[in-house]
Structures are given as structure tokens and as C-alpha cells.
């Protein structure tokens, strides 16, 4: 446990996600598994939300596929540190491809919230912003205060991407909010709302 971060963070994950989504405009959102689903669903069950309630490690690449298909729309990935770590190679792929309209927001509580708050690697020294920068992300941020979050909002929603931010939050889960769970429903509702031209 030698590398464990001692800093206590004060931001509350749900407030952070709600603040980000308040400015979403017509952005599409892809969540990662776990608390991110509840955080996003509790803001507003928007048809342009794709809740990934499974496929740990897949959120970034699902969002990347949407981003390529919808180049004129902002795509936000809102996910947790555990989920991102499970697909960390995705950062290398996105870093190579440089999609301008993709923002990845990691709500980092340094813990696996869904399984009992066991430590993830981010609480033990692994620096996701550093990994993103080393993978070719030129727009990155580490957010630990409300002021930093406010300052960063325009870049989250508008910086030429790929954009990557880690928001350090309290390792405390908020209430579960039931997002629609049926994959066929959520995916078709999302596609109808997001895809300008069906095939």
C-alpha cells in the first residue's frame, strides 16, 4: 500500500456529473459500468444516453465508434477509474486516432464502488492523466475542486479532442438510480435520437 494516495478529496461524484451534464447541449453520452450509470441517469434519463451496465472496459471504444459516426456531435464518455483501467489500451487507440469530438471524463473515486470500495490502482500511484498524455491526448485535466471543474467545463464540451479529464471524488457512492436496463431498448432509443441518418 506504499503508493496509496493520502489526499482526501471532497468533490461529490453525483454533483460533478450533474454539473457537467447541465451544459451538455446535444451531446451524446456513453457511460461505463457501475456508479457512472446511476450518476448519469439521475441527472436526466435522456434518450441520448447509452448506459453500459456491463462490458467493463468498453465505454471508451463504444463512445469512439459513435464519435466517428457522428463527427459533428460532441460525444462524452462518463466512466469510473475501475472501468477505464479495464480497457486502458483504448486510450492508446484513441490517442492514435485523435477524434476531435470525443471527451472522456473519469469520475475517479480510487475504488471499485460496486463491489465494496476495494482500492483501484489510481489510489496506489497510477496516474491516468499521465497515461492519456503519453498516449497522445493533448487536451487533459486533473480536477479536484469545484473551481477547477467550473474552469474546465468549456473544454469538456468544446475543446478540440480527444479530451481527457480525471475528476477526483469522494469514495462514497450515491443512491442507485434505476436507469433503463434492457439493452435493446436503450440502444435503439439512443440510435434513434443520435443517428441523423439511419442506414
Amino acid at each position, binding site marked *: 500500500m506504499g503508493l496509496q494516495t493520502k489526499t482526501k478529496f471532497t468533490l461529490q461524484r453525483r454533483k460533478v456529473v450533474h454539473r457537467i451534464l447541465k451544459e451538455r447541449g446535444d451531446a451524446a453520452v456513453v457511460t461505463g459500468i457501475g456508479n457512472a450509470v446511476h450518476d448519469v441517469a439521475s441527472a436526466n434519463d435522456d434518450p441520448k444516453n447509452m448506459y453500459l451496465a456491463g462490458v467493463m472496459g468498453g465505454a471508451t471504444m463504444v463512445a469512439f*465508434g459513435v464519435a*466517428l459516426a457522428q463527427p459533428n456531435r460532441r460525444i462524452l464518455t462518463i466512466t469510473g477509474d475501475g472501468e477505464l483501467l479495464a480497457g486502458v*489500451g*483504448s486510450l492508446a487507440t484513441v490517442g492514435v486516432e485523435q477524434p476531435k469530438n470525443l471527451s472522456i471524463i473519469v469520475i475517479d473515486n480510487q475504488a471499485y464502488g460496486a463491489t465494496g470500495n476495494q482500492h483501484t490502482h489510481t489510489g496506489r500511484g497510477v496516474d491516468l492523466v499521465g497515461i492519456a498524455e503519453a498516449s497522445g491526448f493533448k487536451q487533459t485535466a486533473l480536477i479536484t475542486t469545484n473551481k477547477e471543474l467550473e474552469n474546465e467545463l468549456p473544454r469538456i464540451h468544446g475543446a478540440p479532442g480527444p479530451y481527457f479529464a480525471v475528476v477526483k471524488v469522494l469514495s462514497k457512492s450515491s443512491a442507485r438510480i434505476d436507469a433503463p436496463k434492457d439493452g435493446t431498448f436503450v440502444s435503439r432509443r439512443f*440510435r434513434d435520437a443520435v443517428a441523423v441518418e439511419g442506414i
Partner: protein
Amino acid sequence: MVKRKNKSWHWSQDVHQLFKKIGIKQVAYVPDGGLAKLIELCQADRSMRSVVLTTEEEGVAQVAGAWLGGQRGVLLTQSGGVGNCINMLSMIQECRIPLLAMVSMRGEWGETFPWQVPMGQSTIPALEAAKVIVHHVDLAEKVPETVNAAAKMAFDSNRAVAVVISQRISESGGKG
């Protein structure tokens, strides 16, 4: 489809043309010898975006995202990469998102490298366990029509379909 056996013909040319015809816009792949010609043709084609992955499961997620955003994608992988895809395929099944995959086999027809055999022999059972419909093809001339059939079932019937290309074809150089 007409059999072609002239020396310059390779199944990849017809499959690439088919991709164009059916509107494939995203080609997700991990480099592979058996699919190398097809990958080169796709890379050179500016009407589609070819994306190199660090691991094949990224491609399952990407082509799911492509469909969610209104485009068609295809995943190109060697059999060894199928094992990396299993959990990600649960999204395809749960959401009934179309998946078109092309899998080139190792560890199958006349394999001489023992480390390829375990995953090669597990490839089709693993795909089928993940509810991916498998079209196995062992003659180069039959690859284009098989991909055409797989694409129809994938995109028109919203199913996951993998065209598994026998090692017998890549051993022959992929020509007719």
C-alpha cells in the same frame, strides 16, 4: 457467384468491394497475416476509416458504437483474438446490435506452431458460446459470397455473425 481462378485474383478484392457496396465505414482490426491483403485494401480506401486496435475487444465495442451512431462497421481478427472478445460480445447479444466479423484461423488446418492450437481449437466453440453465428469457409472462391450472406444476416436481421476463414485458404495464399 462465379468461380474465378486466374492467378491475380484474391478473395480480398471482392470482399473489399462488397464492404464499399454495403456501406462499411469503420474497419476495426488487429494486424493479421491471413487478413493482411484485405486490411491493406481497406486502409487505402478513404471511404472507410481503418482503426488499429490494441486488443480485439476494443473492436467489438467500436463497431457497436458505429451502429449506435448510424454507421456500419466490421471487425477483422485472427482466431487468437476471439478469446479477447468474449465479455464485450455480451453487449452485442444484450442489445442485439449487428456484428459482422471476419476471423482468420490459426491452430487449425495443418498448424505447425503448437501455441496456436489451443485458441484455434477453441475459436468456434467460444464464438458459439457467445451466441455469434459462425459461417466457416474453406475455399477462397466462397469467401465473398459468405461475407455477403453474413453481412445481410448481421445488418438486416440484427445478429452477430462471424465469417471464419480456414487456415487452408491462407496457406494457399488466399487465391482461387
